[in-house]
């Protein structure tokens, strides 16, 4: 690690704290992705990974490089702005695709009716087997 010795200790302590916090939040988000039951619960796990976890790691990176190189290094803000702009778009598109596919395949057990916004249409009498939407 270059420039670690001449960096002030308060900056290193702050960066270490932010790194530990961000890494724990990332792990918690991935655990949520693994453990929750339906897709509509599961999509909440990666949200904190992308916003809070990535934000903490980006702040730690900014703080560390600013302290180690003794000049202002803020180009991590580009990634932060990009993530804050794209994360809602990604989750909205994934959610719309999931709702569309679950409604079309008539999967009641997928949790698509949990918010009482969408209702699975009843199956037609001679419509054949439901669509194999996997």
């Amino acid at each position, binding site marked *: *690690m*270059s*420039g*670690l*010795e001449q960096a002030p*200790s308060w900056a*290193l*302590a702050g*960066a*270490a*704290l932010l*790194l*530990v916090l*961000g*890494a*724990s939040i*990332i*792990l918690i*988000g*991935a*655990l949520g*992705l*693994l453990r929750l039951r339906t*897709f509509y619960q*599961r*999509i909440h*796990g*990666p949200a904190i*990974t*992308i916003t809070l*976890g*990535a934000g903490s*790691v*980006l702040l*730690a*990176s900014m703080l*560390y*490089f600013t302290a*180690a190189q003794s000049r202002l290094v803020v*180009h*991590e803000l*580009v*990634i932060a702005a*990009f*993530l804050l702009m*794209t994360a809602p*778009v*990604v989750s909205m*598109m*994934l959610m*719309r*695709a*999931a709702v*569309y*596919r679950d409604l079309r395949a008539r999967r009641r057990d*997928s949790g698509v009716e949990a918010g009482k916004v969408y209702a699975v249409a009843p199956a037609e009498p001679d419509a054949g087997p439901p669509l194999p*939407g*996997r």
Partner: protein
Amino acid sequence: MATLFELAVGYALVCVLAAMLLCTVRLLAGPSAHDRALALDTLWMCGMLLALVLGIRYGSQVYFDAAMLIALLGFVSTVALAKFLMRGEIIE
């Protein structure tokens, strides 16, 4: 303080790698296709964060460009996947 900082960086590396492992489990086991798309998107994000933590570990600015590129590609690929899952084609 430098030793404490190196410990924190090691902890962050282990945590991000464990998160990538959990995402891989969901990617392989996910019951439906949109579960897999979500797990793949989280895997992209964890890869970007891994590049950032590696940049802190080695004190190099090169990893920042890699993280930027991974973030861009992750966004484009996830949007394309979601569009494909919804419509059956990407560019109509």
